[in-house]
């Protein structure tokens, strides 16, 4: 009789979303951004996305073979890491540098810390920061959109193959501040593959929100807090009010807010924690952009908040129904 009962800890109700399903839904949601990148930056953008995805999956496979773990590449998490990292790279980045970023993201950040679910920070973000610190020049070479039209067949090659690179490169709109809002919204500006087109990212982000893969807390808190801070800063410094939508649409905040600040592993569990996480990201991005030497602080702010996630989780732990807050002395002695 007793064998009929299954004794297990909560949760007892399971949804039908598996890790694999979630990963491929997120990749699906990134497809508009990949398509936009291909239109804006040519076939090399697509090549870079496929290459990074492939290298990441291969790295995960080799790591798991070497560590004699179960092979879990089919869950799509390594593929997603590669695709996300590719969308954070400039289109002219040499392939070997992109490969180093992927290997670092999957092997060091994810597998060495115990694989999916144990990584302390978002692998794609960490990979990007690694590349940014290692190859500062290549990582901040931004070509103008549709640069490939003037190049013909050489467009699959890296920056080395582009003659007159200076003629097709420019600062990101974040640094130059001269793009108009419509170009920023559709993505007709220089930048990383996947960050330029706010429209394509929003389509993917809203899709994820509607099917419930991500919650609204972190993106809304991130974009909202950044908007409020930029508004206060603009008012205080006497600038034009268009600076606020400009700050939201330029740089990588939309990509970061919808696809990286919502990572299950490295962001807080509760809604309250996610809100705190988003506000922290917004605050750090604002501070880095306006007061530090770097033009963009999106990846650094998300990385820093990743590290704070365990503490946010502890602060925002859900109290069981009816439980009383235990006084500090009692909890340490007991």
């Amino acid at each position: 009789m007793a064998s009929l009962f299954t004794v297990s800890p909560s949760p007892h109700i399971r949804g039908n979303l598996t890790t694999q399903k979630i990963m491929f839904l997120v990749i699906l949601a990134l497809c508009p951004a990949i398509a936009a990148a291909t239109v804006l930056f040519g076939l090399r953008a697509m090549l870079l996305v496929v290459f990074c995805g492939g290298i990441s999956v291969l790295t995960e496979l080799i790591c798991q073979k070497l560590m004699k773990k179960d092979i879990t590449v089919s869950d799509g998490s390594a593929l997603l890491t590669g695709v996300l990292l590719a969308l954070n790279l400039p289109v002219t980045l040499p392939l070997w540098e992109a490969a180093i970023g992927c290997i670092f993201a999957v092997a060091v950040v994810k597998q060495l810390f115990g694989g999916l679910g144990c990584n302390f920070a978002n692998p794609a973000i960490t990979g990007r920061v690694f590349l940014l610190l290692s190859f500062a020049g290549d990582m901040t070479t931004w070509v103008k959109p549709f640069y490939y039209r003037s190049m013909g067949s050489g467009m699959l090659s890296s920056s080395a193959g582009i003659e007159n690179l200076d003629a097709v490169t420019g600062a990101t709109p974040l640094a130059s501040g001269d793009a108009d809002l419509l170009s920023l919204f559709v993505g007709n500006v220089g930048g990383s593959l996947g960050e330029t087109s706010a429209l394509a990212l929003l389509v993917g982000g809203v899709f994820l929100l509607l099917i419930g893969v991500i919650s609204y807390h972190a993106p809304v808190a991130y974009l909202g807090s950044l908007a409020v801070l930029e508004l206060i800063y603009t008012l205080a410094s006497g600038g034009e009010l268009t600076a606020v939508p400009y700050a939201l649409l330029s740089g990588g905040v939309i990509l970061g807010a919808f696809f990286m600040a919502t990572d299950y592993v490295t962001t807080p569990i509760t809604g309250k924690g996610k809100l705190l996480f988003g506000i922290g990201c917004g605050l750090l991005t604002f501070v880095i952009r306006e007061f530090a030497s770097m033009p963009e602080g999106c990846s650094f702010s998300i990385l820093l908040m990743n590290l704070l996630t365990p503490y946010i989780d502890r602060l925002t732990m859900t109290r069981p129904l009816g439980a009383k807050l235990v006084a500090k002395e009692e909890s340490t002695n007991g």
Partner: protein
Amino acid sequence: MNYGKEFLKGLIQENPVLVSLLGMCPTLAVTTGAFNGIGMGLSTMFVLICSNIVISLLRRAIPQQVKLPCYIVIIASFVTLIQFLVHGFVPALYTSLGAFLELITVNCIILGRAEMFASKNNPIASALDGAGMGLGFTLALFLMGSIREIFGSGTWMGLSVPGMAGHTISLFVMPAGGFLTLGFVIAIVCAISNRKPPKKLGCAACPNAASCGAGCEEADA
């Protein structure tokens, strides 16, 4: 006493950097190049051998209550000596090591060996212990410096490495790269020497045993 063992244990078995994790500050700060690593390692080795010998000779004369100030005075004298020597004969190294040369005074490897070994053993064993530990420190720094210089600057001991030009990863010469390299070197050395973390750390191996008074042993039991 087995003098050979006293010398050899510092190389791998009890390597001050890779096993005891002592002297992290110079290890991370000066290993942006292989030459700096050797220079720092040899300077520390010199101080370590000399201070170990003197402290060992004076081990019955130094009163327990003021042993730390006495050790520091002895160590600082030798650091001043090596500082003048390096300044005089290798000015380039003196410039690139900067304040870290003087900071050998407070390097915990030297104080650690004085306290753990030289104050309890005879001068010959202490000198061999200092030489072994110093050589282990030098080898670790040289290894770290080589890795960071080859990948970070594309050179080795100042000579350009073929095939690395234009393919350098500058993170390796940044502070973050120092921590990364150290982690990987420790992991590889552990794998080679097939060392597993101890299942239970007894009071014999615990560095805090003197101050804690076996409190943890009782708590476990």
